[in-house]
Structures are given as structure tokens and as C-alpha cells.
């Protein structure tokens, strides 16, 4: 159900690791679980590939939020790539603070290949969250409606 007070549809870039999160997102589709179409996926081999620069670029290019999703800690296909993602994510959060961007706009989530339901829930809650946060409009390009 869309929140009545806002018809804003956030644009979210999703970096999904190929082994867990992307497969999990595929499973959500295969199981015909419905969820908001706001996250557009970009497939990477490992969440460890997600350079903070990519995240900042996405926000600067007009994304309202970024989702990084990988294997659960301990389940990484590359042993521990996601552990490095965690460390990097902390730095990223500080960076967001410095730019005055709400931390909620960038999320790190663990979704295993069998967690289609969870992926859908993550997207749902993130989308809802961003709807309340409103547009980021970091590059100033977007016309502010309302």
C-alpha cells in the first residue's frame, strides 16, 4: 500500500552480488513475489567489488538511494569479500554524514540465494523508507514538485 501522503517514487540503484543476492532476487521473481519496482539491479561478482565511489556516483547522478546486497557473512563465495564490504560500508556511512546525506539512503543487506522473500521485504522497506525521506536531489537536477 502506498503511503497516502506521498506519491514520490524513489529511484534506487541495487548492487547485487551474483552468487547470493542476485540469485535471491531471481528467486523472488520465480516465486512470483510482488515487490515495488524501485530498485534497478546491477550485477557484480561480489559485494566486495562495490567501490564507495560507485555509490557516491549513483547518488550524485540522481539516485535517491543505493542498496548493496551480498551473501551473509561467512557464506561469501569468495571466502570473505563481504567482510571487506562491511568495513568499507562503515567508511561510506561516515562519508554520507559528511555530505549531510541520511544514512538510511544507503543500505547494506545480506540476502542468500534462497531468500527471495527476504529480498522482496528489503526492497519494500527500503522503498517505503525513502518515500518518507523524500527525493535526494543531490545534483540539483531534479525539479522539486510539491
Amino acid at each position, binding site marked *: 500500500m502506498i503511503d497516502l501522503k506521498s506519491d514520490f517514487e524513489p*529511484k534506487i*540503484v541495487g548492487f547485487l552480488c*551474483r*552468487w*547470493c543476492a*542476485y*540469485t535471491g*532476487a*531471481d*528467486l*523472488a*521473481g*520465480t516465486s*512470483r*513475489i*510482488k*515487490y*515495488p*519496482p524501485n530498485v*534497478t*539491479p*546491477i*550485477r*557484480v*561478482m*561480489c559485494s*566486495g*567489488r*562495490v*567501490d*564507495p*565511489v*560507485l555509490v557516491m*556516483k*549513483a547518488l550524485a*547522478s*540522481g*539516485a535517491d538511494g543505493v542498496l548493496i546486497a551480498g*551473501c551473509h557473512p*561467512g*557464506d*561469501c*563465495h*569468495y*571466502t*570473505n*569479500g563481504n567482510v*571487506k564490504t562491511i568495513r*568499507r560500508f562503515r567508511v561510506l556511512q561516515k562519508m554520507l554524514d559528511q555530505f549531510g546525506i541520511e544514512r538510511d539512503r544507503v543500505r547494506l543487506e545480506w540476502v*542468500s*540465494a*534462497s*531468500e527471495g522473500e527476504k529480498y*522482496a521485504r528489503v526492497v519494500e522497506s527500503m522503498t517505503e523508507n525513502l518515500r518518507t525521506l523524500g527525493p535526494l536531489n543531490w545534483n540539483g537536477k531534479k525539479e522539486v514538485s510539491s
Partner: protein
Amino acid sequence: MAEKIGVYVCHCGTNIAQTVDCKSVVDYASGLPNVTVAREYQYMCSDPGQELIKKDIKELGLTRVVVASCSPLMHEPTFRRAVEEAGLNQFLFQMANIREQCSWITENKEMATERAKSIVGAAVKRVEFQEPLDVKKVPVNPNVLIVGGGITGIEAALQIADSGKKVYLVEKEPTIGGYMAQFDKTFPTLDCAACILTPKMVSVGQHPNIELLSYSDVTGFSGYVGNFTARIRRRAKYVEEEKCSGCGLCTEKCPVSVPSEFDCGLGKRKAIYRPFPQAVPNVPVIDRDRCLYFTKGVCKVCQKFCPRGAINFEQKETYADLQVGAAILATGFDLFDASKVKQYGYGRLPNVITSLEFERFSHASGPTGGKILLKNGQMPSNIAILHCIGSRDTNFNEYCSRVCCMYSMKIAHLAHEKTGARVYEFYIDLRAFGKGYEEFYKRILEEETIFIRGKAAEVTDVAQTSAERGKLIVVAEDTLLGIVRRIPVDMVVLSVGLEPRKDTTEIARIFSISRSQDGFFLERHPKLAPVSTASDGIFIAGACQGPKDIPDSVAQGAAAAANALSLIDRKEVTLEPTVAFIDEKSCSGCKICIGLCPYNAISFDESKEVSVVNDALCKGCGTCVAACPSGAIGQRNFTDDQLLAEVEAICA
């Protein structure tokens, strides 16, 4: 020179076309820069669909191809092949997933179409930046590693070994055989488990192509498809295998008696023991924690009596590195711990036993020599069998354990045959789905087993009537009669479910494979690739993938063997060239990347003072790329340019 991009939007029958307006996506794509042609088609993966692409490459001179259809995990190889066949490098192709992550996630046509456009737009932008890459071919090591020596592993090992290939069979316990060796009879034919299992065990033990590593486990697994290295820990048996003749004198003379794990603690074994007489290999091991010599420093009786001097108290655990081309995991299952369900009183009330304990009682060479006895030594005259213990239960495991209905009926038969007791089965639903299973159910019905449809609420010894005094009372709602029943019995058998083994997490980590939500290993595709995993060259079979009975386990063991053979008979495999590369000019020599690589694929060239990636070791995770402070590292087919192109297209 501008690229010429071809975009192909698949309807996938109605799977995509139902929610995505494909025509509108094609129109949109046609308007994108550098797109030479955009088409839609019913089934792009069909031969005519692929022909469309090939024809356009040849006739229109396309230099890039985007197919918008299902997930790349489904058909990326198909289209890559098609592109390659038309003379274009396969890495100049990009797939846009507008089915699993688009048309199937919403019913809103407008939203789905917009999303499809965004996904296609990103792919078109990205493909422009893609570069031709060469795939590397590497030879395949023909040896196969099999982990787990239950009936599944045994079947797989024999199939592969019989084809002339070398098999390393690693088993944790002192003997192969697994759970099946503990069973008395097998459903639905009631043949004795040992009679059909032990000949196979002997074949494994004697096969020239099988190297059996018992009392061992895998502690490390590295490399890539066709070229793996497995590190095996061989625990000390304190008995030298080559010298031992298996005469059993040591066991006979050992003064220490402890509960036998093989007999579920109902019988005894010695501190130096074989789990059961037909063990393979027929070599005893010393239980260090129980042995008098190891605990108190005295005894050595076994050593004194061994006619071949095979006892060696100084033996140490050793490690071996094995080179293999493929691995099959057949690590099996654990039984659900019945004491977790307190209301059935397992461990609290005497004569409440598990199904496996019943098997041991019933087994001719079990602790009671095949007699079903109560704690007081008498035969039970009423027995209740409770189904679904720990299964189909949101408090424990939600799934059905698949085997319990059938083995419960087998137990009903054995109990009735051996004791003449009246047998009650408390079930939720009866699942007799296999060949000959329904007929077996009918047979058990005719033996006057009483089936009560209702999950037992509890087993109690609090009597309400004099008839209940001194009995175990099973309380259940009989859902067919709509009443609560209290059935007094002498013995309760809990049909415990199957669970992922406790070490599943550890094994999944070692082999880098995933687990499904229930904790079992995850297959590549539940229907079409049931014994493959997401990791090439690693296969799974039997109950480690999910609960299975013996016929299914054997079938999977054989299937995994066929998969492994098909891989190693290819003689060589191609490797994804999506590895990391370092731009020497930009590398500052800080070495941050070196510490991050989980595969030690990056080394430092002291003369040039730059880091260097070893392509053969790199698995292409990209962690080093994200970490490089000078942006000197890139990942092929996942370059910053390519990913940024996607980001920008999505955000535009």
C-alpha cells in the same frame, strides 16, 4: 567509431509480454544512441530467435548485442554462444533481465514497462564499454573427490571408479556405510539393509580405483573447476592400516567398555573398536578419550596381544593434499534431537525411544539381538509410533522429512511381527508417494495397525484412569473422529526427522557453496540441475541436499557421478576471463590489494615496484578493485566504466 548495437526483446511467451509492453520497450531502445536495430520476438532462446541475432550481426554488421529476456543465470551461455557463432566476441554481449527481476515482480503493466526500459537502457549503455576477451582453456584433472561414505557416496564412488577414473572417498567415521548400516530392514521391500549394503561396501574397499580415506575430513578446498586441491586431515587411528589384519583380538582384550554410538548408546563397545563387524576398512581405531593408556598412561593390552604389531600409540594426525578435477559432496544428514520436544518426554520418560533406537533393537546384531524390549526386560504389548517429530513443525523444521511416514510403517510391521503388539500410528498426513509405497501402506493396514490421524499433543505418565496407570499415555486429537483420545501404551517410538548436519555451515564455507533456507546445500536448479551447485565442478548428492530415502539417494549418487564424469571427460574447461588486471602506470605499489586477496593471486614485482595479478589464481571477485586507492586495478567485464555506465543510465 560508433558502435552498432542490436537490441532483442524477448516475450518469453507471455511470461514477459503479459506485464511488459515489449513493443514500447523496442521503440524506446530504437531511440537510444548507437542502437542500429531493435527487435522483439516470441522466444529469443529458440533457434529462430538466435538466428535473428546471428543474421543481424552478419548483415547489419552489429558490433554489440543486448538481449532483454530472462536472468543471465538462465540463458547467458546460450546467447554468448550464438554471438560467438556469428563471429562476434562473446563478451560484446550483455543480457538485460526483464523477467525474474521485472515482469514477474509486479502486475502493474505501466510500472513493469518503465522498469524494463530502465534495465534495457542500462544494458545498452554498458555494452558500449564492453571489450572483447579471450577465454582460457585449462586441462581437467581426472580424479574425483567424494566426501561422505554413506550409501550415496558409495554409489557415486563405484560408478566413477568402474569407469576407470580415480576416486578419493573421504569418510569421517572409522567405517563407511552411513546411517543405512544401522538400519534393520528397508521399506517397502523389507530386504535387510546389511544384505544389500555390505556387498557394496566391500566393493569400495577392494576397488583398485578407489582410495578410501576413513576417519578423515576435508579441511580445505581451493582452486577452480577441473583443478582443485583438497586438503584432507587424516585423524590418528593408532592402528597401522597396512599391518592390521582385522582379526579383532585387540577389541576382544581391551578392558574398557563404553556406550556404542553405532548402537545409539544402547549397547557397548570397547575403547579400541570397529563400529560393527562388517566395517570397511576392517581396521579398528582407538578412542583416545576413553583409552586407558591415553587417559591414565597404563594398559597397552591391545599392543601386547596384536599379532602383527599394528598398534602404534605414537601415530599423529597427518594432512594430505589431493589434486582433483571435481568433487561430490554426499555428507548426509543428522537426525532431529527428540529431546528438544519436551512434551514427548524423550530422555525423561522411560520407554520413549527414537526410530533409530528401534532399528538397533530390531537389528539381529543389535544390543538385544533383535528383540524389542522395554526397560524392564519385558516385551511391549502396545506400541505407539509418533510421526513428524521435529518435521512439519514451525517450532523446529518446517519441511517434511519425506522418509518418516514410510519408515514408521516399516517399524509398525517389524514391531507387530516381533512382539505381536498392537501398534498405533499417530500421523498428520500419510505420504506414500514412491514406487510400491502405497501398496506397502495397504499391507500395513491389513496387518491391523491402527492409524490415528492427529499429531500427538503429548506423551505423559500422569494417569487419569486405572487402565492408564503405569502406562505411557499418548494424547492426541483424532481429527477424523473430532475427539481427543488418550491411548495407553508400553512403548512410544518417535519418528524423528532429518536435519542438515551440524557441520554443514563449515563444509559450505570450505567448498564455497550456498545453503537453502532450511540449511541443506543449495542445488543449482531445483528441477533441472538437482546435483549441481553454483560452483562449477562441485556436485551434491543425497540427503545433504534435502531429506531423501535410499532409492532417491542412490539415484542422486549415480547422477552426481555422471555429472562429474561428463566434466572430467571433457578433458579441458574454459575459465571466465573476468579477472582483475593492474595498470602498471597507475599502481603506486602500496600493496593494499595483496592483503585483501583471498586467493593469494596478487604478488609484488619488486623490480617494477608494482602489484601483479596471477590470472590463473584470480577468481574475479573484484574486492581489490574497490580497494585500490589509485584506481589502478580494474576487473575485466566489470570495469568501472561499465558499471558507471549502468549507474548513469539507471539514474538518468
